[in-house]
């Protein structure tokens, strides 16, 4: 955990960047490149979950909420862009004379949309986090509360079909800030933006992890009371991590829309939120690359196995989850460290302290 050589992680990010930005566009078909773009969006959200959960000990089970803020902001803008001066098609379907809902109007503006993608999650996460952390809500209560929010938002969207498209969601976007989305070159550009944002997010958490804040965050995770007795307010420390993770989820959601071409409540509800967590746990929540790689792996599994054997995929994912939690509680990214530790001193196990502490935290 205490990396003495920052350049190892940094060159890891560099390698990752080369693979995603240079190698992948060359070797992958358009279809798979687009799929990889989708996984990158989940990975961006996963990097944030790694920060909040892995380092901060906050089991954020409702990241779908923030994913939705970014995704629906973007989707509303793209829908309006596609509709031009007219009312979006799905609205006319229910009521040919319906006016555009008031909250849609500002999303015509590109600037407002981009601002909303950043500010909405920050505002919501700040106020929510402030209320929860100052009241010392934590562990399972925090997890359930965030999960409930994701369910509530998905239900709200489902039930407001006239305003949000309901379960059918928003889709059929033709333009992305003026670029025609059907054009393969533009699709590739959208992929590159998503991949680049993932790299930026990785870089951001790399700096956070090696900063004093990163140490303080781990300290807060492991012994919140002790941190309080050092003169810090742990609520503020957790709040920063929570807000950053919410922002990342929103960015992931925003890029998800032009890449996948549709956003529905199913992509942001409880199941989707848990799937984001699954990737993080699979890859290794407290590590730098674990969450992103785990999310990409789970995404890939879903598109390859999930499409050929849809019934079996869920079981395979569940089984993987059990195996990882049982035998590799720190995720796949802890494998190399385990391996070297085992070779160096066969009688000494790497301390699973981090896991024990967090399970303790998750218990009511």
């Amino acid at each position, binding site marked *: *955990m*205490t990396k003495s050589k*920052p350049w190892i992680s940094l060159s890891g990010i560099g390698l990752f960047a080369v693979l995603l930005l240079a190698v992948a566009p060359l070797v992958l078909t358009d279809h798979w490149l687009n799929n990889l773009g989708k996984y990158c969006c989940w990975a961006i959200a996963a990097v944030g979950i790694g920060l909040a959960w892995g380092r901060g000990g906050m089991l954020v089970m409702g990241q779908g909420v923030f994913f939705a803020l970014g995704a629906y902001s973007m989707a509303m803008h793209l829908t309006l862009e596609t509709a031009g001066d007219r009312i979006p098609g799905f609205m006319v379907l229910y009521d040919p004379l319906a006016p555009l809902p008031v909250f849609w109007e500002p999303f015509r503006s590109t600037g407002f949309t981009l601002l909303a993608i950043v500010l909405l999650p920050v505002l919501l996460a700040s106020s929510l986090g402030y209320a929860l952390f100052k009241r010392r809500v934590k562990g399972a209560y925090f997890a359930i509360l965030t999960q409930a929010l994701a369910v509530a938002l998905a239900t709200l969207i489902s039930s407001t079909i006239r305003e949000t498209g309901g379960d059918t969601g928003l889709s059929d976007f033709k333009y992305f800030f003026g670029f025609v989305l059907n054009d393969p070159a533009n699709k590739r550009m959208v992929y590159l933006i998503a991949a680049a944002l993932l790299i930026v997010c990785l870089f951001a958490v790399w*700096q*956070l992890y*090696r*900063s*004093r*804040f990163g*140490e*303080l965050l*781990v*300290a807060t995770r*492991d*012994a919140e*009371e*002790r*941190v*309080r*007795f*050092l*003169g*810090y*307010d742990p609520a503020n420390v957790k709040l920063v991590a929570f807000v950053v993770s919410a922002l990342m989820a929103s960015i992931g959601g925003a890029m998800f829309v032009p890449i996948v071409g549709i956003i529905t409540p199913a992509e942001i509800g409880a199941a989707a939120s848990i799937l984001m967590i699954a990737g993080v746990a699979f890859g290794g929540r407290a590590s730098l690359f674990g969450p992103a790689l785990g999310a990409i792996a789970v995404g890939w599994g879903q598109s390859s196995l999930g499409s050929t054997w849809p019934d079996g995929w869920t079981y395979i994912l569940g089984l993987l989850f059990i195996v990882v939690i049982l035998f590799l509680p720190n995720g796949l990214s802890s494998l190399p460290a385990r391996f070297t530790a085992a070779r160096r001193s066969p009688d000494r196990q790497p*301390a699973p*302290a*981090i896991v024990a502490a967090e399970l303790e935290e998750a218990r009511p």
Partner: protein
Amino acid sequence: MTDASLVVTDLHVEFSGFVAVGGVSFDAHPGEVRFLIGPNGAGKTTCIDAITGLTRATGSARLGGKELLGRPVHKIVRLGVGRTFQTASVFDELTVLQNLDIAAGRHRRSASLLRARRGTDGSIEQALEETGLAGEFATPSGILSHGQKQWLEIAMLLVQDAKVLLLDEPVAGMSQDERTATGELLQRIAAKRIVLVVEHDMDFMRRFATRVTVLHQGRVLSQGAVAEVQADPKVQEVYLGTAGAATTAAMSVVPEAAAGTHQRKED
């Protein structure tokens, strides 16, 4: 009485009707190693909990004229009150240096938190030297010995620049040599700070205390220099009267107290 003293007056703590501390008054000054002793359940730890804001209390606890009671925990810490717990609580995942660096952070501006650490603060090096942990600065604190963890906690209070050190059974579970080293450390650091020690170990108290307050059932039984207190018939009665139970009390104190802290954390 100087401005820098800790003055506790008529401290009352009640837990849903049960009076844990009923009107305790004492003071502590820089330059002395002040001991708070008493049989199990006398309210010693509760006094410390009240002063540090962990437990609600009435009465008054003033540090250099500033009232501590009624403030949130981290604000009281920022006024210069530091404490340790019966069970050593350091950040196991972090190294000794990182532990101390976090403790030193209360004087830093929040923006500087975003940068990585470069170099070591002078106060940290001094505290490492003082507590004899200089050789262990890169060790993850989770693998330190029990005694070293306690010293690390004291070192954290030193870099935190606490004016008052409230130490809850700092030598519990230590070997005889470690006890002596800890006692000498406390005498050294007490020169400029207020050191208040809650202890069960009478031998340790006799060797290192400057002044002692004996608590019994939430009240002050006796107060003064070690010899005075030991000669006090009331003290003898309490301690001799419970002499038979003394061993069992000493044995039960650690687990019971630990359970108490956990319960409070859950609340």
